[in-house]
């Protein structure tokens, strides 16, 4: 009886973040005045847009490297791939595939670099990868702003800056826009929600990705990553190459983030060359945490719950804010502030739980001794 109660409280603590968001959404939905049909459509669209990106975060968490803020690196690689593909006028799905292929070597290189650095900063992976994303952002700007058009040939003036080199602030992906989503046109009619358009092909790819992750967990490499994630020293003693395993985890995550970014941008229909990537890491991590993940534990379920709750809040909060205060900026402000808050809370909770576990051990010891004495 006692044990059951304890479990319940622990579960409540673990799921406190998703619960908080469910409450926020429950309050905001009626206030926003949005129809069920519109909400459902929006959520489905955003699920297709973001889920793949968030899935790319799972593997480093498994390898004990925390939330990979370095996924921004993969996003940059994906954008470079897309810029080149659209300059070469390869349109539609083939253009996306080409962009993905182009992004792979860049992602792998960046991932290797990132992994090497993170191996030098064990235990400080998150802050290191976060700062590194700023550093690589500088390199990315150098490449895109100065080298594209001067060193790397760029033909089309529509994406080049008027001065002859550098890429414009916005690159239109009109001929790629939602080509993947609408490859198989599909919509369902539900009694309450009405007609919902489903980006079936994107969903199929996401589903495949989930299967790959499930399968990956069962591989030797997946098992090694879990071992490394829990205790590097023990894993090393058992003969696992810890450094290499960690680098592989980051490389995989970076490559997947690159793919995810391409899927994300094809849905949006344009690239904000200098800002698309910089926020994406933050929003993906916030979404994952909202879904109930923590720094050392995340599942596919967390990804989907996170997308739904986080983006539901994204959609309804500005409207609700506008309805209450008459100023839609309030909601806009609210959602940015909330995503930072969620990450902060998750990090603090991670530390507190670690400490709590430690003191619980001490208590257990004391009780054991009472029994003995």
């Amino acid at each position: 009886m006692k044990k059951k109660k304890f479990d319940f409280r622990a579960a409540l603590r673990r799921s406190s973040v998703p619960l908080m968001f469910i409450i926020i959404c429950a309050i905001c939905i009626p206030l926003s005045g949005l129809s069920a049909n519109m909400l459902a459509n929006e959520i489905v669209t955003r699920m297709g847009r973001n889920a793949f990106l968030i899935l790319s975060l799972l593997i480093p968490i498994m390898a004990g490297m925390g939330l990979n803020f370095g996924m921004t690196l993969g996003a940059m690689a994906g954008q470079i791939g897309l810029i080149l593909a659209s300059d070469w006028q390869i349109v539609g799905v083939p253009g996306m595939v080409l962009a993905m292929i182009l992004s792979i070597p860049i992602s792998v290189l960046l991932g290797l670099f990132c992994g090497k650095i993170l191996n030098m900063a064990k235990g400080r992976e998150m802050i290191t990868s976060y700062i590194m994303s700023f550093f690589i952002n500088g390199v990315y700007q150098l490449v895109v702003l100065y080298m594209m058009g001067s060193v790397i040939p760029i033909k089309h003036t529509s994406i080049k800056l008027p001065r002859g080199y550098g890429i414009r602030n916005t690159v239109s992906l009109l001929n790629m826009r939602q080509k993947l989503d609408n490859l198989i046109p599909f919509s369902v009619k539900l009694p309450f929600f009405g007609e919902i358009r489903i980006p079936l092909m994107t969903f199929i790819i996401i589903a495949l990705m989930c299967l790959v992750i499930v399968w990956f967990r069962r591989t030797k490499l997946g098992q090694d990553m879990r071992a490394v994630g829990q205790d590097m020293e023990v894993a090393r003693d058992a003969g696992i190459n810890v450094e290499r395993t960690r680098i592989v985890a980051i490389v995989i995550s970076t490559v997947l983030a690159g793919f995810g970014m391409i899927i994300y941008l094809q849905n949006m229909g344009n690239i904000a060359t200098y800002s698309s990537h910089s926020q994406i890491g933050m929003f993906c991590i916030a979404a994952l945490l909202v879904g109930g993940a923590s720094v050392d534990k995340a599942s596919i379920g967390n990804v989907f719950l996170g997308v739904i709750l986080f983006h539901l809040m994204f959609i309804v909060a500005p409207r609700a804010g506008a309805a209450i205060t008459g100023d839609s900026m309030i909601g806009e402000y609210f959602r940015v502030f909330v995503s930072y808050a969620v990450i902060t809370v998750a990090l603090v909770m991670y530390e507190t739980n670690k400490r709590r576990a430690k003191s619980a051990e001490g208590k257990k010891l004391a009780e054991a001794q009472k029994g003995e004495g």
Partner: protein
Amino acid sequence: MNNQQNTPLLEMRNISKDFFGNQVLSDINLTLNEGEVIGLVGENGAGKSTLMRILFGANMIRETGGYGGDVLLNGEKVNFSSPFDAIEAGIGMVHQEFSLIPGFTTTENILLNREPVRKNLIAEIFGDRMNTLKRSEMDERAANAIELMGVNVDRKMVISDMPVGHKQFTEIARELSKEQLKLLILDEPTAVLTEKEAEALLAAIKGMAQRGIAIVFITHRLQEILSVCDRVIVMRDGYVVSEKNASDTSVDEITKAMVGREVAKTDSAEGKNRSFDQAKTILSISHLWVDMPGETVRDVSLDVKEGEILGIGGLAGQGKLGIPNGVMGLYQAGGKVTFEGKDIPLNSPRRCLDSSFAFVSEDRRGVGLLLDETLEWNIAFPAMQIQNKFLKNYLGGLVKWRDEAAIKEVTDRYIDELAIKCTSSKQKARELSGGNQQKVCLAKAFALNPRLLFVSEPTRGIDVGAKALVLDALKKFNRENGVTVVIVSSELEELRQSCDRIAIVSGGKIAGILPAASSVEELGALMLSQVI
């Protein structure tokens, strides 16, 4: 099979090892046959662990210049370049510290990094690590290993939910699951077990030996050695001092061989007729427990008399280091500590220091010193922080400036008194030798003018000359300032020389308190009395 009678499984010939001129093993000869169990006993620092590390091919041995002599396995000379080679050759070792992944099940831990895999196409392209694990076979092999041990452990249970004993069994099962295993080294496997679990383990050892696995069993629990081993080897100061069949020896004989020094006993009676029976109790500890990893204190009750030097001795891992660390609040602790009639809250270092305790930690580089600061800073810092010494007040105490002159004066005085070898009081603490760093730690504690001083392992890792100086300084501080001193040390001889009374800790409890003039044998027997 025929030559099995003549060639032993393992033979170690004339093994010697020194660490940079410090001889830790000399002329060790050891043979071990298939299915034989030998017990290896000796005090801490007798060389047991070093010997086993040589056998296991530990990196640390090669990094410090290798070893002398030969190791023969099945009559062939071997020289392992890493523990993995040793494992390959059929040697398994269960270390004192667990080497388990906390979130994995028993099965996963037993087969860690040796999981059977199912080949697939993707692995052909991306390498073997993309093969999937064969869960069913893993389960089967884990079950076999557990059965071999003869103890029941839940294969599906996650390690972090397990009692300590089962973790130990998991470690052993991991070694057993290696098919090539011929020789198993168990380094104090029963230290963490309850009595029942230890019994099960001993039964398991017998069972394994019957299956032909040779076992080296290191423990401080002598009864266990006698009940399970075929032969007992006693080591002391890097030599094998006795090797006997278990049936021909007794606990007393082994104890004597372990602690009995050959060197003439130094006169420890100097000033030993001090008696503190009448003195009032300055510090009273009752039912103290401390959760210090590797030095767990279970239930310690102890009274310290005002003005005496109390020694706390015992084997490593029995909890003697946990006592000062727990009282000072550096590790989670519980129980009751009274100092001069006032209760001291545990787990709050600042309150202890305020109550005029001082503590010289055994971890002088980590806790004890500000390595990149000058000696002046090191010595004056705690006194400044805690007692507002060496500060000049301005504006009615609103602004406090350091009194550099006073700091220099006190530092120079201690440099002189303790003979700290340094270029000046401005030298960085990092640049001093270990012995001199230890003296700085003492000076730092002295500068606090404590009523009670805890000193933990004051002579660890420093040379003989410095040892005498450090101990003399402690004695002088005690005699001249009337400060009560508690010295925690692994070296009995040192305690006998400098203390008035010696408390021996064994199994996380006080096994007994004897006057310092007691014989080494008496103290040694206490040390082993409650070993767990």
